């Protein structure tokens, strides 16, 4: 495996930083765009990116806060991005589009690209799927895909209900049954919409797990849910991103 930091063209052609991890060898393979959580382009997300390379994919994680804070520590960059109102949806779509294009241009690409995101990144993974040509979408407990955003939220976040008709790629949703954002009711609404519009999907809600159950460096880590979730991701990407 090789893993390094590169520069890619993001939204509007902006040069942004990204972390890429690739398996050894020339075999054709799919690509995965990893969308980091709100705390930023951090060590834990880079570990996740490397795990996808270990699973056999070219994986890339764009630094969504690079414009606000180039070269800053991830927590400082996240603080700046938060103070400035967060990442606009259209910019996110452009950055993920740039990351996906980079993966597809690799000589090892089989042309297929999936997205995955955690927490706020889960919503952004779905958002990317509504607007971009991707082959598989994984949403790990993203809030405000459905449901109502409380009034007065200073960050530029809305639910994605109006955009969901654009979601054609199959969706894997992994949720904590004890989570309130997204709540089980919001997950049910997402399930109903995907059913009605015939978007293929597979949802799993883990009893006893709350939000952020994949986060190995946080008290919310839930071993059973995370282990099963990783198996579901591996099978889902194997089916939809394989050669």
């Amino acid at each position, binding site marked *: 495996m090789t893993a390094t930091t590169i520069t890619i063209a993001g939204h509007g052609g902006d040069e942004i930083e990204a972390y890429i991890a690739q398996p050894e060898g020339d075999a054709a393979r799919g690509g995965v765009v990893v969308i980091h959580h*709100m*705390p930023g382009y951090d060590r834990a997300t880079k570990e996740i990116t490397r795990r996808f390379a270990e699973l056999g994919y070219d994986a890339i994680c764009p630094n969504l806060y690079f414009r606000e*804070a180039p070269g800053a520590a991830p927590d400082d960059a996240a*603080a700046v991005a938060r*103070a400035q109102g*967060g990442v606009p949806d259209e910019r996110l779509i452009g950055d993920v589009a740039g990351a996906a294009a980079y993966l597809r241009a690799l000589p090892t690409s089989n042309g297929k690209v999936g997205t995955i995101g955690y927490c706020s990144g889960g919503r952004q993974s779905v958002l990317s799927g509504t607007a971009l040509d991707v082959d598989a979408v994984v949403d790990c407990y993203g809030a*405000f895909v459905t449901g109502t955003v409380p009034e007065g939220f200073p*960050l530029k976040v809305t639910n994605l209900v109006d955009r969901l008709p654009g979601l054609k790629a199959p969706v894997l949703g992994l949720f904590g049954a004890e989570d309130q*954002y997204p709540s089980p009711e919001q997950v049910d609404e997402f399930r109903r919409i995907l059913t009605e519009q015939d978007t293929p999907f597979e949802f799993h809600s883990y009893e006893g797990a709350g939000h952020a159950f994949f986060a190995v460096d946080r008290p919310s880590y839930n071993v059973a849910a995370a282990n099963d979730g990783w198996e579901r991701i591996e099978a889902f990407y194997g089916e939809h991103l394989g050669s």
Partner: protein
Amino acid sequence: MCTYTTVRDTVDGSAKGPGGSWFHVTDITVYFDHPFHAMAEHTLNIDFAAPEKGPAARVAVELTADSARRLMAAIQEALDAVPVEMQA
């Protein structure tokens, strides 16, 4: 969850920050969301920052909700304990 909730304001004061240096603080960001370091799912987080000095000019605090309320009470008690004219 990511609450996304963020309250911003401007302040005038100083904080002792990275490298042990004091710097002039101009902005605060307050939010209840995931901490970076505290061992709790959510905390009340305060960033004391000087944006014109760059992202690293920041003192961050992460407190449990109960701790944050006690801090508020302590600040209120300290301010109430001195004459108003001293606070000008």
